[in-house]
């Protein structure tokens, strides 16, 4: 028996005993329903956010769930949903502009592009491509290299978009003439809408876990309409194991009690009803929505992407560096599109663990730190191992 862990306030969200006690409660909740109805009911719960997908497997939570509770992995992985054409376009600019410095987040570097290329391979071949931790670091790169153009490739949902907005404002304040942003930011609510509109026979989701970090920016309010309209409850969750286990239990309780049009906020320590107004204001000052944006797995989704407002067009790489937006198909055998939609699991893909591995990925879901395939590859053996002893601890 591992001794009980007592740490600081926030560390208690990782406390093993607390997680196991909630898991036990979850088993009772599910089994209680079984007895009443006389038939087994299953719960398909989608975690929208790739960060949640990884947390479920990293902490072995999957192994603690009752057999009837299935986690469906959603599209909340910004690198995964970016169509290959965008990477091809970045590589084209890198090949054309020899003095260009490209700054981007690490996740993007190894995404496979046309002709077996990737940004990492372009870097090895001599392109000046730099991994940055923050868009503000890219602004510093531009300030320190005033005679060279610097392009920041801005990806992510509402968690990174405000940071990009701050970076553009900072570049404007500094009067930089060599800082450009390729804006590929995405909005969560239109993607949620798309997932929930899918026919039940393709993706059966009884309830879903709302993305806690996105909601710390946008708040609870924008997601409430989806619970009300589609009759599938939502629990906005934090990312520690206790957060997720609580959120799953809350969802199952809401389903069992017929509270299908409700939304609950488990992550109340970081998520306010109306979100972070400073961050939302920073975003709307710099960005406006695009009429359509292409997502891998979904195609065009209306009002789902952000572009830079005309007032800041001097920082828009799309026009200043003449980026050509092309649309190309995926690798024919790659199942990333169906995995992103929640229709397939990574191990349904013929390439998984064979042709497609972290060292030579075929699709983006194997690359990203939020991708479902990467989560399965890294954690699934550990998870199966954990099932052996965890089953003894949770007495349903």
């Amino acid at each position, binding site marked *: 028996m591992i001794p009980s862990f007592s740490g600081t306030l926030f560390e208690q969200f990782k406390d093993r005993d*607390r997680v196991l006690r909630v898991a036990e409660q979850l088993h009772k909740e599910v089994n209680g329903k079984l007895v009443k109805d006389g038939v087994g009911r299953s719960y398909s719960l989608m975690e929208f956010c790739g960060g949640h997908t990884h947390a479920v497997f990293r902490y072995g939570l999957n192994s603690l769930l009752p057999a009837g509770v299935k986690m469906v992995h959603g599209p909340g992985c910004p690198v995964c949903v970016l169509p290959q054409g965008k990477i091809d376009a970045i590589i084209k600019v890198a090949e054309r502009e020899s003095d260009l410095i490209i700054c981007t987040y690490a996740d993007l570097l190894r995404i496979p592009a046309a002709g077996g290329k990737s940004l990492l391979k372009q870097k090895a071949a001599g392109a000046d491509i730099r991994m940055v931790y923050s868009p503000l670091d890219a602004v510093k790169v531009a300030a320190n290299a005033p005679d060279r153009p610097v392009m920041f490739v801005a990806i992510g949902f509402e968690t990174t978009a405000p*940071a990009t907005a701050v970076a553009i404002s900072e570049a404007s304040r500094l009067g930089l003439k060599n800082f450009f942003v390729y804006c590929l930011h995405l909005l969560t609510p239109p993607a949620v809408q798309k997932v929930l509109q899918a026919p039940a026979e393709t993706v059966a989701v009884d309830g879903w876990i709302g993305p806690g970090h996105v909601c710390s920016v946008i708040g609870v309010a924008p997601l409430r309409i989806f619970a009300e309209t589609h009759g599938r409850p939502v629990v906005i969750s934090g990312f520690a194991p206790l957060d997720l286990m*609580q959120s799953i239990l809350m969802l199952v309780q809401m389903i069992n009690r017929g509270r299908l049009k409700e939304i609950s906020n488990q992550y109340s320590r970081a998520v306010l009803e109306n979100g972070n107004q400073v961050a939302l204001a920073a975003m709307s000052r710099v960005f406006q929505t695009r009429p359509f944006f292409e997502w891998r797995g979904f195609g065009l989704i209306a009002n789902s992407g952000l572009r830079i407002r005309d007032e800041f067009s001097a920082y828009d790489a799309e026009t200043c560096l003449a980026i050509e937006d092309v649309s190309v198909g995926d690798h024919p055998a790659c199942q990333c599109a169906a995995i992103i939609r929640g229709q397939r699991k990574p191990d349904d893909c013929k390439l998984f663990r064979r042709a497609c591995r972290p060292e030579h990925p075929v699709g983006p879901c194997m690359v990203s730190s939020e991708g479902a395939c990467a989560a399965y590859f890294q954690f699934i053996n550990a998870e199966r191992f954990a099932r052996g002893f965890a089953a003894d601890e949770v007495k349903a």
Partner: protein
Amino acid sequence: MPAEIVQLVDANEVVVTVGGIRKTVSSALIENPSVGEFVLIHVGLCLAKIDREEAERTLALFSELASDGENA
């Protein structure tokens, strides 16, 4: 993990510690940061403040769930 603000640098920067590591981050996206507050850090910026009382309430919520599921 939440980061703790340990120093105010200027109007737009704070020093935080997270997991024993000190880091200077932007506070441009939060209002009135103060030393001792906890924040969520994402790509080098404070994205949101983290409320200790709400954290305690959430930890307590579990015991309510354990005793009476109807209170969830």
